[in-house]
């Protein structure tokens, strides 16, 4: 009997260790692609792979370079990328889950030599949001490259927000929040807007790192999405299930009351100048009046949504594209929210549906998608039938998932 007990205990223990080993600690990473078009009209797609590499692809999916370099069998970073890279033409900047901030040469993928420390270990936290580039006087005069004056702003799960001179990686300032910062900061008119899991939206001076509002705005729940700043307003959703609109100058609420969506708002909101579109984690899509917060329409996709939606031109009209976690893209008419045609299934080489968590990226009528399980980068051209085309793999088939 005791032997049976012992065997049972060992089995359970192994089961527990098994749990720890795989599903519950593996970080997937879902960095969205960035499409950069040079002045000569050359289009390069920068994207993070699920195993921890940053890749540069041409518009047909050809691999320009990878970091770490897959062609010489360098090991991947192992620590994954959640935030999209920031690109300024000369360099590509990206943060990793292990809290490292890299600057790479955009042409070659080699570490930027102007940074004396590369990567910068920001702190003991994780970098989950994307780094944001913005021009700021403070970094002029310290530069040795074409990115003179740019400041790189990045948040950490330690609760800090950092600014570095993009040219040489020198620190500019550090601001504190009381919760983890997962969302990407947004810079507008010299102010950094960033949400924190302490439930506050912060406005920070880009020049000095000091607070811009008399006090940070307190929402009813944690903020993990990046805000949308337009027309003097800051819009964002929070995990209390509400969408807020604040005055960008004062931090005061603009709407009489926040919109209550009944479930977490994880994905970022987006505006077409008139209406604000937001999606709950359970797939409820709402269009709100940007001035009043009153609901214009609502539709339910009945699927989990983490990926931020995008607006795209299709046949002369504007459509809202929303990716569900289970690998479908819904196209909604912005007038009333009805679906425009069937959903676009995104599959892997074996025709199995993939996971969509990274924000979609639009360049003209092309929508770029970074998938998970397995990792692929695909593109949908809405003007040519809307079918998904792979751009990587097969050209990136040497890169593991």
């Amino acid at each position, binding site marked *: 009997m005791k032997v049976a007990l012992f065997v049972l205990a060992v089995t359970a*223990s192994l089961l527990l260790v098994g*749990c720890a080993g795989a599903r519950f600690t593996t970080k997937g990473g879902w960095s969205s692609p960035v499409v950069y078009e040079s002045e000569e009209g050359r289009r390069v797609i920068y994207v993070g792979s699920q195993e921890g590499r940053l890749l540069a692809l041409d518009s047909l999916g050809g691999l320009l370079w990878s970091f770490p370099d897959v062609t010489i069998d360098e090991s991947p970073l192992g620590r994954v990328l959640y935030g999209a890279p920031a690109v300024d033409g000369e360099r590509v900047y990206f943060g990793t889950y292990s809290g490292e901030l890299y600057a790479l040469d955009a042409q070659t993928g080699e570490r930027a030599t102007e940074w004396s420390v590369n990567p910068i270990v920001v702190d003991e936290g994780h970098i989950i949001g994307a780094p944001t580039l913005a021009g700021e006087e403070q970094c002029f005069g310290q530069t040795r490259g074409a990115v003179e004056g740019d400041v790189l702003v990045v948040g950490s799960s330690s609760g800090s927000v950092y600014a570095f001179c993009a040219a040489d990686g020198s620190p500019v300032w550090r601001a504190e929040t009381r919760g*983890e910062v997962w969302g990407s900061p947004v810079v507008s008119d010299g102010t950094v807007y960033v949400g924190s*899991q302490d439930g506050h939206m912060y406005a920070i001076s880009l020049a000095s790192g000091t607070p811009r509002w008399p006090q940070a705005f307190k929402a009813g729940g*944690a903020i993990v999405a990046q805000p949308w700043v337009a027309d003097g307003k800051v819009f964002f959703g929070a995990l209390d299930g509400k969408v807020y609109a604040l005055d960008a100058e004062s931090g005061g609420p603009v709407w009489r009351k926040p919109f209550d969506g009944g479930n977490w708002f*994880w994905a970022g909101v987006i505006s077409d100048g008139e209406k604000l579109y937001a999606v709950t984690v*359970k797939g409820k899509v709402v269009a709100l009046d940007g001035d009043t917060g009153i609901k214009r329409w609502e539709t339910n996709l009945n699927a989990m949504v*983490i990926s931020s939606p995008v607006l795209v031109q299709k046949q002369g009209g504007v459509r809202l594209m929303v990716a569900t976690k289970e690998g479908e893209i819904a196209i909604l008419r912005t007038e009333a929210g009805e679906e425009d045609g069937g959903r676009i299934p995104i599959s892997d080489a074996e025709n199995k549906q993939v996971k969509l968590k990274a924000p979609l990226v639009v360049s003209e009528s092309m929508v770029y998608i970074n998938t998970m399980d397995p990792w692929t980068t695909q593109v949908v051209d809405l003007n040519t039938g809307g079918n998904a085309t792979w751009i990587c793999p097969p050209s990136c088939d040497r890169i593991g998932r």
Partner: protein
Amino acid sequence: MGVIWNAVILSPMINVLAVLYAVLLHNFGLAIIVFTLLVRLATLRLTQRQLRSTRKMQEIQPKIQEIRRKYPNDKQKASQAQMRMMKEAGVNPIGCLGPMVIQFPIWIGLYQSIISLLPTSPEALARLSQHLYTWLPFVDTLVPLNRSFLGLDLGLEVSKHGFMVTVLMPVLVGASMWAQQKMTAMPSMDARTESTNRMMLWMMPFMFGFFTLQFPAGLALYWVASAAIGIVIQYRITGSWGNLFPSSRKAPPEAATQGVGQGKPADEGSKEEPEDGQSGDDRQNRRGGGRNRPAGARRRPRGGRGRGR
């Protein structure tokens, strides 16, 4: 399978913990302790049955020895006779596995719940969003949960804490588990079983103490709380600390006249004295269990057989 697991174990567990967290002033450590208490209360009947089964197993040990002696070379017959005797005595051979079996899914579920409720990665947060009941309106606003409790980060692996916690938590888990096992330890007259018992008594706590290092401090807290509550419940049910503090054991009235070892039924004890010298008493003495035996127990005949080995 995963869907059933989520619906039956994981989601309810996550939501109960979330509600407890909300009620207990946003203290996740307290929520885990109260949750442990609730689990222990929910499995109280099983625990009672387990204790009863253990006690009965102790009682029929001499008879089992007798059967083994009777059929030394026929294992099948011995096993049949043993099963028949157990049936007559109303002993379920796997009766004591109940609470243990029940606890395994709870451990695994709790581990997953802690990881999910204290998300450090977007994946964990995404999973949590799928488990929270939307009809519990306030649970949405609880995220992120306060993960600190008595200097522990409940979501962080024990080995990633400071030196003190890294040393103390495995010791606490191991010691509490050892104490609980020691309390229920069943003395056996069979040398092999007795040696397995001894191995179990040390092996399990050592193993779990070691595993503690790899798991979040919240799960270690559950293990310590579960063992501590288990000890208290067992004391309340049996009225003694068992082998943990043998002096506290209440001898049954018959034992005083029969001179039997602990837990042994009065009608079996002295009559079924084993002949192979594997005296339970001797082992008791070696463990110090016989030092405070009731006065009557000293009258037990001793042939020195045990010593002669």
